[in-house]
C-alpha cells in the first residue's frame, strides 16, 4: 500500500522513492551521518512503510485540504493516507474527489483499487464511469493538441509553436505524465525569444521536475530562471528610467502595470526560492535549504503558493533546518528577530516555542515539544526522510552548546536536561567525542564530563620525534630512488615494448618469460657508462 510512492511511476526514468533521493555531496557542515541509531525514542528512520500515531496531536486533514490546491494537495493527502491509519479513509476519499478534477487517470485507478482493498464505502455521488470518460477525454485532447502543434509548426510562427508546446506540456502534467511534460517544455526552449519566455519555460520545467522528484534538474533550472529574471530586471530598469525622465506626465496605467509586473516578478523569485529550498532539503543540504526558505516573503507565501507550500509547512522546514545547522547568532538574527519570519511564527505557536526555548537554553522543554510535534512532521512527504537526521543534529547541537561554558559537568543533570538516561547519554557522548565535535573526556565512575586538557608541551615533543622519524624515512627513500634511477632500473615489460635500438648483444638479459616478473631496462655497453654519473668510472 504505497500510493504516494507511485506518483510519477508511469515514467521510467524518474528518481524513484523519497528515500532514494539524489544525495549529492553537500557542504561539509551539512554532512550529517546517523552515527548512533540507538537514540532514546523511536529508532526508525521514517522510511518505507511506517505508520504514525497522531492521537496525541490535534492534526486534522482540513489543514491540508484548505491550504493546498492542485496536485500538491492530492499527493499530500495520499502520503497521509499511506502513513496514518486513523485518517486513511478520509484521506483516500478526499483525494479521490480531487483527482477527479484532473486527468490523472493512473493515480485514480490506484486510489480506487486501494479503496476497494480497504473495503471503504464509496460516497453516494460516485461517478463510476469517470475513468473511461476521462481517458477518452485525455486522448482526444492530446490528439487535438498534437495536430494544433503540427499546424503551428508548418506556419512557422515561433511564438505559437512555443505556446503549443507549453499547452501540450500542461496537458501531460495534468494527466500525470511528467516525463513527457518535461520533454515538451524543454522542446519549447528553442522557441523562447524574450527573457519572459525563458522564465515561463523554466517555471514549467521546474514544476514538472519537482513532481518527478528530479532535484538536480530543479536546481539547475532554478538558477537559469534566476538569471533570466535578473536580465529581465535590468532591461526593465533601463527601459523605465529614460521613460520617466522624458515624459513629465507618466501614464498611471503604465506605472501600475509595471508595478504589477515587478510584484509578479518578486512572486516568481519567491517561488523559485521555495522550489530551490525543497530541492536542497531533499538532497540533504539543510543549511542551504534554510537560507532559501528565509528569503520567501510572507505575503507571497500565504496568498500565491497554494499549489506549492503553505506558510505553516514553510516555517516547520525553516525551524528544523536552521536549528540543525545555524549558529546561535545566525539563528537569532535571521529567524527569531526577522520581521518576515515573525509573521510565519505567529501562525505556528508550537514552532515558535521550540525556537525560543532552544535559544533561551531550556533544552528539556524544547526537546519535549519537538517529540510532541514529531508525528505531525512525519506526515510531511518532503520532511519525513530527513526527520531523524535533523533531530539527531539538533540534539548534538544542544549537547555541544550545553557543554560549552563548563569545565566539568555532571552527566546526570545533563541527562535530565536532555530527557534521557545517563547510559544513553554516555553512548551519545562517546560518539560525539570520537567524531571530534566535543573535546572532552568521560569519567565513567563518577559520571562527570571533563574538558580534555591538552598538554601542549608533550604534544610538541611527541610531534618533534615523529617528524624526525618521518623526514629521515623520506630522505632515505629519496636516496634509494636516486640510486635506482642512476642505475637505470625500471620494472618494465619487455615482451610488450620494443627494446631500444642500440642493444649491445652482450647484455641480452632474456629472462624466462614464463615467470611473472618483468624484465629490466637495458643499459648501455658493458664497461663504460655514459657520462661521469657512474661509479664504474672510478675503475678506469
Amino acid at each position, binding site marked *: 500500500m504505497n500510493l504516494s510512492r507511485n506518483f510519477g511511476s508511469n515514467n521510467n526514468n524518474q528518481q524513484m522513492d523519497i528515500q532514494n533521493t539524489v544525495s549529492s555531496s553537500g557542504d561539509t557542515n551539512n554532512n550529517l551521518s546517523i552515527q548512533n541509531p540507538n537514540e532514546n525514542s523511536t529508532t526508525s528512520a521514517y522510511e518505507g512503510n511506517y505508520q504514525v500515531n497522531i492521537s496525541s496531536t490535534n492534526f486534522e486533514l482540513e489543514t491540508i485540504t484548505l491550504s493546498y490546491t492542485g496536485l500538491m494537495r492530492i499527493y499530500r493527502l495520499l502520503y497521509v493516507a499511506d502513513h496514518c491509519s486513523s485518517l486513511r479513509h478520509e484521506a483516500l476519499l478526499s483525494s479521490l474527489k480531487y483527482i477527479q478534477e484532473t486527468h490523472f487517470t493512473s493515480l485514480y485507478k490506484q486510489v480506487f483499487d486501494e479503496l476497494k482493498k480497504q473495503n471503504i464505502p464509496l460516497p453516494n455521488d460516485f461517478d463510476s464511469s469517470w475513468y473511461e470518460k476521462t481517458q477518452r477525454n485525455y486522448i482526444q485532447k492530446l490528439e487535438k493538441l498534437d495536430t494544433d502543434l503540427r499546424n503551428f509548426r508548418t506556419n512557422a510562427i515561433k511564438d505559437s509553436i512555443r505556446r503549443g508546446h507549453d499547452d501540450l506540456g500542461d496537458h501531460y502534467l495534468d494527466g500525470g505524465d511528467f516525463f513527457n511534460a518535461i520533454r515538451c517544455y524543454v522542446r519549447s526552449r528553442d522557441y523562447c525569444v524574450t527573457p519572459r519566455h525563458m522564465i515561463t519555460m523554466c517555471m514549467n520545467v521546474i514544476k514538472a521536475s519537482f513532481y518527478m522528484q528530479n532535484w538536480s534538474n530543479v536546481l539547475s533550472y532554478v538558477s537559469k530562471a534566476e538569471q533570466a529574471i535578473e536580465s529581465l530586471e535590468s532591461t526593465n530598469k533601463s527601459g523605465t528610467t529614460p521613460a520617466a525622465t522624458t515624459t513629465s506626465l507618466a501614464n498611471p496605467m503604465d506605472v501600475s502595470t509595471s508595478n504589477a509586473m515587478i510584484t509578479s516578478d518578486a512572486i516568481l523569485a519567491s517561488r523559485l526560492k521555495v522550489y530551490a529550498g525543497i530541492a536542497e532539503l531533499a538532497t540533504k543540504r539543510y543549511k542551504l535549504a534554510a537560507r532559501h526558505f528565509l528569503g520567501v516573503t510572507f505575503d507571497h507565501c500565504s496568498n500565491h503558493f497554494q499549489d506549492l507550500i503553505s506558510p505553516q509547512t514553510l516555517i516547520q522546514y525553516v525551524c528544523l533546518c536552521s536549528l540543525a545547522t545555524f549558529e546561535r547568532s545566525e539563528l537569532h538574527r535571521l529567524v527569531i528577530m526577522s520581521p518576515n519570519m515573525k509573521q510565519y511564527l505567529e501562525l505556528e505557536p508550537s514552532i515558535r516555542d521550540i525556537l525560543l526555548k532552544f535559544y533561551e537554553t531550556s533544552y528539556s522543554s524544547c526537546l519535549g515539544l519537538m517529540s510532541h510535534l514529531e508525528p505531525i512532521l512525519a506526515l510531511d512527504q518532503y520532511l519525513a526522510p530527513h526527520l531523524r537526521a535533523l533531530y539527531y543534529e539538533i540534539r548534538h547541537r544542544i549537547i555541544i552548546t550545553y557543554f560549552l561554558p563548563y569545565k566539568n559537568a555532571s552527566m546526570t543533570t545533563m541527562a535530565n536536561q536532555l530527557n534521557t538516561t545517563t547510559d544513553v547519554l554516555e553512548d551519545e557522548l562517546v560518539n560525539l567525542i570520537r567524531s571530534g565535535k566535543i573535546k572532552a*573526556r568521560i569519567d*565513567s565512575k563518577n559520571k562527570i564530563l571533563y574538558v580534555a586538557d591538552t598538554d601542549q608541551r608533550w604534544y610538541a615533543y611527541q610531534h618533534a620525534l615523529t617528524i624526525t622519524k618521518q623526514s629521515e624515512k623520506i630522505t632515505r627513500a629519496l636516496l634509494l630512488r636516486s640510486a635506482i634511477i642512476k642505475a637505470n632500473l625500471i620494472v*618494465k615489460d619487455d615482451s610488450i615494448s620494443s627494446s631500444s635500438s642500440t642493444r649491445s648483444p652482450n647484455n641480452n638479459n632474456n629472462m624466462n618469460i614464463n615467470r611473472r616478473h618483468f624484465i629490466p631496462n637495458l643499459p648501455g655497453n658493458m664497461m663504460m657508462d655514459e657520462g661521469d654519473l657512474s661509479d664504474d668510472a672510478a675503475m678506469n
Partner: protein
Amino acid sequence: MATLDQFVVNIRQLTTDGKFSDLAQALSSPNVDHLTKNIQHIDSIIATFPLPEYSMCMLACLHAVVKAPNIPDSDLFLTQVDTFIQTSSAEQVYYLPQYLCEICHVITERLRKENRARVVDIRNSLYLGIPILYRAIELLRREPGQLLSIHSDLYQLCLLCQWFEPALTYLETDIIDINRENGKFDVKHLLLSYYYGGMIYACIKQFDRAANFFENVITAPATATSAIAVEAYKKYVLVKLISGTIPTNHLPTYTSRNVQQTIKSLCSTQYTELFNLFNNGTLTQFDEFVNRHRDQYARDRNLGLIKQTRNAFICNSIQQLTKTFLTVSLKDLANRVQLQSTNEAEKYLIDMIENGQIFASINKKDGMVIFHGSPERFDANNMLAKLQDETEKRIQAEKQLKELERQISLSKAYIQRTQQSSPYHDRPKILN
C-alpha cells in the same frame, strides 16, 4: 683443444701483464665459450690457476662450470666457491662482478630446490650457503651502502632457514648506491631484496622498518606492475596496521600509476578495506571480514600477520577509549571493544601497560580502569638524548643527500643540460 690452449695461454699472459680490463673483455662471452664448450677439462684448467693472482681466470672458470647443464657435485662445488671467495683478490673480481653474482644465484637456486627435495638434513646445505653469500657480499661491496643482487639471495636463504643475523647486518645499512654488475643487475633483485628484507623485519617484529621496505618495493619506478609489488602491497597493509602508526592509506605520490591501478583492482577488497575497518569498525566486523577472506589470506600466506593485526586492532580500540574516557569500568571496556570477558580485557590492558602503549591503572576493588596522561615529561636526560639521536640520524641522511646533489651538479652532463636551457649565458652554445 688448440683454441682452448691458446685461450688459456692468452689469459695467463694478460693476467701476468696486469691488463685487467683487456682480460675482462677476453673473459666475457663470446670468448668464454671456449671454456663452456670444454667443460670436461675444466678441472684441469682450474688447477692451473693459483689464487689470488689469477682470480679473474678462476672466476671465469667457475662461472663456466655453473653455467653448464649439470654441476657434478654440489657440495664440492660449494667448497670450491668458498675457498675462491676467501682467497681471491677483490681488485680483480671487481671487473667481473656479474660472474660472481650469477654463481651465487645458481647456488641459491639449487639450495632452495634441494631444500624441497631432501627431507633429512635439509638445513645443512642452506646453512652452508649463507656464509658463502655473506662473504661474497663482503668481497664485492665497494662501500657499505651498496646493493648487490647477492643481497636478495642472502635474504632469501636466511628466511628459509630462519637465521636472521647475517641478513640483519646488511639490512641495517641504508642503501645509497646500486652496483650495476655490468648490466646484469636485474630490477627483480632490487625488488626481491627489499621484499625479503621487509619480511625479515616483520619476523623480528620491527614493523616500522618492514613497512618502509615494503613501501620501497611498491614505489620503485615502474612502467609495468610486478607480482612482487602486489605481494609487497598486501604485506605492507598488514604491517602498517600492526605497527600501530596512524593508518592513513596513502601511498607516496611518486608511486607509479599502473602500480596503483593494479593494486586497486587486485587487492582493494581484501586489503585496502582493512584500513577503513580499522578506523571505523568494531571487532566483530573485523572478525567477520577476516573470515570471509580467509581463503585469500591463506593463499597469500599472510594468516600469521592477520592474527597480529587482530591484536593491533584491539589495542587500537583500547587506545581510542583512552582518548574519550578518564575512567571506565572493566565491564564497559569489554563491551565497547567487544571482547569476550573482563578477564580478557584485563589481559590486554596489562599487556599494553607493560609495553608502554597506554598509561593506566586498574582498580580491582570496584573494577575501574583509570587512564592517566603520559607521565613522560620530556625533561629527563635520556629523553633529550633520544631526541638528539633521532635528529642526528636525520642530519646524517641529509648530509648524504647533499653529497649526492653536489656530485650531480658537478657532473658534465648536468652542466651541459643547464647551459643549453639557460638564457643567461651569452657565450656561444658549446656544441658537443
